[in-house]
């Protein structure tokens, strides 16, 4: 394994996070079995007090996981120089077969954790903790994903050896090649990718506006956000990144985060991720609004989250457009 500080830090952070969540699992079971708000018994009071601890721990864990995701990608990019043939994060991740699974699991943890936090925030607005069982049930579902992410990440790091020859992004992301990820995505015709992106963004924005008017339609926004997320990622890989690099065959989604491209990657990813998360959250809030104690707070939260989602998607659309327009690369004959 590589004794790099960032790797040690990531292992430490993930390990602690997994430990915390594993420690919360027995508590979650107890809540599912014994929670009874109507009772004033000391057992119930103790359970209620404990929830504060668990939620605080989880908030910290989830914030750390979000930061760790960024650190993971950043570090993968940095480490590229240690591997022959690796030019950026993609090469580093391909060194070991656990690389990309680790990344995907971390992404999953990010979204699931974010959704759980929305669930918690909404639950706290109801005077009878209406979602408590749902929340802790969801925790039981989230725990294995987080533990899996920790283990896979560890497997990945343990498998890293500095001199292994790996493929760099141009092998992975050009039209030919035989690898699993993103190949078909990179080969997506540009016109199609952009129109699909525009379409999905329009649907998401429309859904967002609908939710502002009728919060009950939050589920629509959630679905639209998820779709827009995947379309957004596909568009970045197949087309937008090409415009940024001004090289028709460079499709890497990580290189746009680098200094030489002005870190524009962040300007794309941050709005996209935030918008998706808020959209999903809005769906959750709208679904929860069916409970009587959340009749007021649920729709309000759904609206607020929908607002942020709209902002995020709009920003993403604008920035993508700007990147395409300012680029010296011309992919479409008709564009002047």
């Amino acid at each position, binding site marked *: 394994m590589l004794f790099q*500080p*960032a790797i040690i830090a990531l292992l430490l952070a993930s390990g602690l996070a997994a430990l915390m969540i594993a420690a919360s699992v027995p508590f979650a079971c107890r809540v599912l079995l014994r929670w009874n708000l109507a009772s004033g018994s000391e057992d119930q009071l103790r359970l209620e007090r404990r929830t504060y*601890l668990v939620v605080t721990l989880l908030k910290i864990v989830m914030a750390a996981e979000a930061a760790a995701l960024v650190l993971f990608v950043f570090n993968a990019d940095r480490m590229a120089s240690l591997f022959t043939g690796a030019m950026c994060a993609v090469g580093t991740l391909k060194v070991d077969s656990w690389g990309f699974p680790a990344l995907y699991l971390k992404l999953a943890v990010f979204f699931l954790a974010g959704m759980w936090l929305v669930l918690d925030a909404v639950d706290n607005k109801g005077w009878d903790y209406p979602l408590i069982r749902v929340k802790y049930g969801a925790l039981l579902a989230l725990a294995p994903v987080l533990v899996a992410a920790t283990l896979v990440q560890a497997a990945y790091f343990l498998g890293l050896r500095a001199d292994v020859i790996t493929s760099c992004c141009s092998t992975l992301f050009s039209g030919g090649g035989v690898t699993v990820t993103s190949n078909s995505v990179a080969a997506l015709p540009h016109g199609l990718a952009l129109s699909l992106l525009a379409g999905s963004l329009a649907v998401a924005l429309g859904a967002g506006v609908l939710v502002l008017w009728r919060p009950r339609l939050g589920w629509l926004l959630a679905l639209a956000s998820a779709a827009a997320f995947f379309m957004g990622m596909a568009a970045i890989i197949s087309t937008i990144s090409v415009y940024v690099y001004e090289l028709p065959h460079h499709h890497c989604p990580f290189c746009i985060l680098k200094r030489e491209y002005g870190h524009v990657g962040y300007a794309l990813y941050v709005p996209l991720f935030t918008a998706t998360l808020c959209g999903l959250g809005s769906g959750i809030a709208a679904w929860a609004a069916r409970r009587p104690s959340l009749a007021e707070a649920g729709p309000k939260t759904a609206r607020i989250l929908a607002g942020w989602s709209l902002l995020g998607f709009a920003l993403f659309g604008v920035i993508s457009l700007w990147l395409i327009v300012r680029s010296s690369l011309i992919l479409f004959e008709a564009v002047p």
Partner: protein
Amino acid sequence: MKWLNRQRALLDFALSSLRRRLGKTLGLALVYTLVVAVLASVMLFAHALRREAALVLAGTPEVLVQRLVAGRHDLIPADHLDAIRGVRGVKSAEGRLWGYLFDPAAAANYTLMVPTDRTIEPGSAVVGSGVADARGVAPGDLMSFRAHDGKLVQFRIQGVVSKESALVTADLFLVSEGDYRRLFGIPEGRFTDIVVTVRNPREVRTVAEKIDAALPDTRIILRDEILRTYESVFDWREGIVLLLLSAAILAFGIFAWEKASGLSAEERREIGILKAVGWETSDVIRLKAFEGMVVSLGAFLGGYLLAYLHVFHWGAALFEPVLKGWAVLYPDFHLTPFVDELQVATLFFFTVFPYTLANVVPIWRAATVDPDQVMR
């Protein structure tokens, strides 16, 4: 707006709470700052070294060709130059002459070299700053060495290499080609090794493979491989040191936990009052979290600044030896300051994250006191 007001009010109160318990706060902050400073020093130092190495290597040729005899490095014949120049993609190929010269007077090894970028007068030498310091010589002085046949060869010091490049030039002893061959007894038509520059950086590997095929008695070393190895070594050393320091982090975590748990009677009373007058558990947790955040931020910034000064202004006096390696001739050099975002983020994970976690349970225990406690 309401949310913002609430955070501001809580933050204000957190600051005033810290001020009220200044002694305890400062004690914790001091330890915290030191922990950050030590870790940051290690990281800054290692990173600066890595960057220096990369910068230094950036100007070197992409490929090095050495001849191996029975697995050991031997002199390389000049006709290999023609074979190499014949490979497509090679921009230039030059033979290098260098070796090690042991100086009994200083009990040190010098790197004796024939420079390619200048000509040295026969009988003269240009020395590195480390050599000049070790032997106490200045331009105009004489230095003598025994050649391979026992005869004495004298050199007049023509100049001293500037201290700025001391990292790589401290132990240099530059002489003319004639003097070199005379000193070591190396005949014409033989070089120590051959350096090759390649036209297209993307083709370095292919060119290297062709040279390897053409000259089976050689080994090819790529600059990128050297760079990678250096990076690995520095990473590895840095990692080991950090792991050793993990004991310090653990101790710090325990210390933080103890401090946070050891609420004085006065603090307990305060929290009881807050809960009695209408603060919820989450408000108290938020208050304590703000206190922790302020301390963390202060310690992180202070520690990082301290580390920066330590490494870039005071020469990392505390652990130079471990990270640089062992040698008789220590180049005295100043590292170029470089702050790296990845490093800052990593440092954050090593320090603030464990501190925050260590505080959670004590804060929770303090905050979940019953509101009617003050009345009992």
